[in-house]
């Protein structure tokens, strides 16, 4: 029998490419259906709230935006013991610290998935609060899904090419207002809502005109 498998997307959808992992799970649920032994989950930035989901899984596939120091939009897959190190190497956000701890806590309790796969994408932009995925990152979603589907098949699952029923999607995914189309389509204009981050995190760029340069 195929192992109980958790397909988890983590990250903050409000931080541009940080939403990569969550959007992957959303797309997967929109195109594919699975047997009851596969659980899809939008984990957001929830840290320890995710522990029991991870403990209950025999195999874990995680989508996430990871700073590998590679070109934006590069997809990289890491397995097993290497995963925590990659998630902590260059921490971009709290969820990575949090998720590293979730994996460690699962280890410590002696209940943890045997197979762990991290499908990570190098982000282009994080400092666009309220923004969506950048083109090179969004373009990697199909490839990331292919990797996940190959893993799922290898684990003995049988993905069917049809969208998950809406009820199952509601359990797995974000509220409708936060799903990719509604979220990105409903965004206020740049004039109405400033789109930049703290200047210190954008050292390569000239000061944004909205920040009145004085120094």
């Amino acid at each position, binding site marked *: 029998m195929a192992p109980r498998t958790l397909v988890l997307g983590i990250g903050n959808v409000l*931080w541009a490419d940080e939403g990569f992992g969550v959007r992957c799970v959303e797309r997967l649920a929109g195109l594919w259906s699975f047997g009851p032994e596969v659980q899809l989950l939008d984990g957001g930035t929830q840290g320890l709230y995710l522990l029991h989901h991870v403990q209950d899984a025999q195999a874990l596939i995680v989508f996430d935006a990871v700073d590998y120091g590679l070109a934006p939009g590069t997809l990289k897959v890491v397995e097993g013991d290497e995963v925590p190190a990659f998630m902590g190497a260059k921490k971009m956000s709290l969820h990575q610290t949090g998720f590293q701890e979730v994996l460690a806590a699962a280890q410590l309790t002696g209940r943890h998935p045997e197979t762990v796969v991290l499908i990570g994408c190098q982000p282009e932009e994080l400092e666009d609060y309220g923004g969506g995925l950048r083109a090179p990152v969004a373009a990697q979603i199909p490839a990331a899904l292919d990797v996940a589907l190959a893993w799922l098949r290898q684990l003995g699952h049988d993905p069917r090419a049809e969208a998950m029923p809406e009820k199952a999607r509601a359990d797995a995914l974000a509220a409708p207002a936060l799903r990719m189309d509604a979220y990105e389509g409903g965004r206020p204009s740049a004039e*109405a809502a*400033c789109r930049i*981050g703290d*200047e210190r995190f954008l050292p390569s760029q000239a000061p944004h005109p909205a920040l009145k340069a004085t120094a």
Partner: protein
Amino acid sequence: MNMTPNGFDLDASGRRIVVDPVTRIEGHMRCEVNVDDQGVIRNAVSTGTMWRGLEVILKGRDPRDAWAFTERICGVCTGTHALTSVRAVEDALGITIPDNANSIRNLMQLALEIHDHVVHFYHLHALDWVNPVNALKADPKATSELQQRVGPNHPMSSPGYFRDVQNRLKKFVDSGQLGIFANGYWSNPAYRLPPEADLMATTHYLEALDLQKEIVKIHTIFGGKNPHPNWLVGGVPCPINVHSTGAVGAINMTQLNHVGSIIDQTYDFVQNVYIPDVIAIGSFYKTWLYGGGLSGQAVMAYGDIPEHANDFSPGQLHLPRGAIINGNLNEVHDVDVRDPEQVQEFVDHSWYEYAETGRGLHPWDGETSPKYELGPNAKGTRTSIEEIDEAAKYSWIKAPRWRGHAMEVGPLARYVVGYAQGHEDIKGQVDGLLRALDLPFEAIFSTLGRTAARALESEYCGRLQKHFLQKLIANIRNGDESTANIAKWDPSTWPKEARGVGMTEAPRGALGHWIKVKDGRIENYQCVVPTTWNGSPRDAQGNIGAFEASLMNTKMERPEEPVEILRTLHSFDPCLACSTHVMSPEGQELTTVKVR
């Protein structure tokens, strides 16, 4: 030397220690302190280093969706933002909720409160007091005796049990992936527990991991899923049906009984493990009563957990509302978050500008227009600050003030307000704790007091959970199964323009969302979160904020290993993540630790 109006003697002449961020989800924080040649903190500067634009991205959205966005601000207190948001929208549009929805929301909010406190204590804060590496030296038999002495009603207390945990811990430490226990200063004399207490507390760390996942099942049952439970303007999204026929997926008696058993299990843990642990740990740190900051002089709570639906009057709130200023506990002022003279945000030391300088703005009239500039005495560059100039603008956090006063918010603030009001449960708990530790009342104004207030509040919240579950079941048995009021769901029923405010007591303190609705859409949205109060920078008068005040006069054992700074900042359960870089006088980085 420079005396602030709120009574702190600042001296920035000593060695500077810099606290700086790496993460960015919930807000960053940087902290700088000056220590004198005795290692005592004589100046403290707290900087929020992130420009956060949640308020602006909500512009033009449907107010009924705002909760889903605000739920994503934070990785920890998702539900409490969602609840605050639906309350703000309901207030603006004049929507009342049914009694059952009030009980269910309270059950969810109380579960979140207890979950956050347990996780904070065991998984984030305990390592500031407990040394898990030292636990490897413990004698399991002596640990068992200690357990039976401090928590006699806890069944898991045999020597074999502790030996087992010790072996697991040893295996984990030997594997080299210290993970959760990395970044500790395990040889620092600031750690005072004997190995047996360290082993007992580390064992409970593991037990709490198992418990916390039970607590959140209350969110799964009422909110449909977890993480990210569902919320609804007008009530709660779960229908109730306790009859054998009817809606599938509705809340039934089996689920309500499940909620009851989770509540009982949690309550037992809090009574038999959490509170005894706080007392046991506290007994070794009785002489470490630093960190009081503003807690003895200026605290505020908005109050929460209304007994009756739609009634937020102070007498009807189970978590108290009120403000104390100038250290006068004989007078508790009521807090009116609508009054433009009470809650105001100032930006004199924040990287924003107002159309009119020097003024404070009420959140309904809030302006968020960035102005990033460093003071003349700052060191480093605009993109890489080595040292802040706190005489100028120095934070992305605004400075909220209550009638001009810098305030501490959070569990200790709630407990000080409740105590001053003579709240029976709170007073009984606080007096009992102080008796157990043989400490005077003033001892609660401390880092340890903040930590203890959280444990006591978890017990009190457990009692409230039992109350609201009974109330919910009784109301259902009386035939009322209503959970939502959808009479004003359609925007055509709304006024053309409206404004409202939602308040909650988040685990880490008073939380408010202020909303303006125009033509069915959000026109303005302002969140003033607890960490804005606690982490606020100085104001025009020079009053320092709660984080800053709490670090003052703390003696550091080894300034290059800032255990004490971590301990006190952690005691606020700050809703942000940051890292500490300790700089040597030559400017090389000595070490990095994380503050969360």
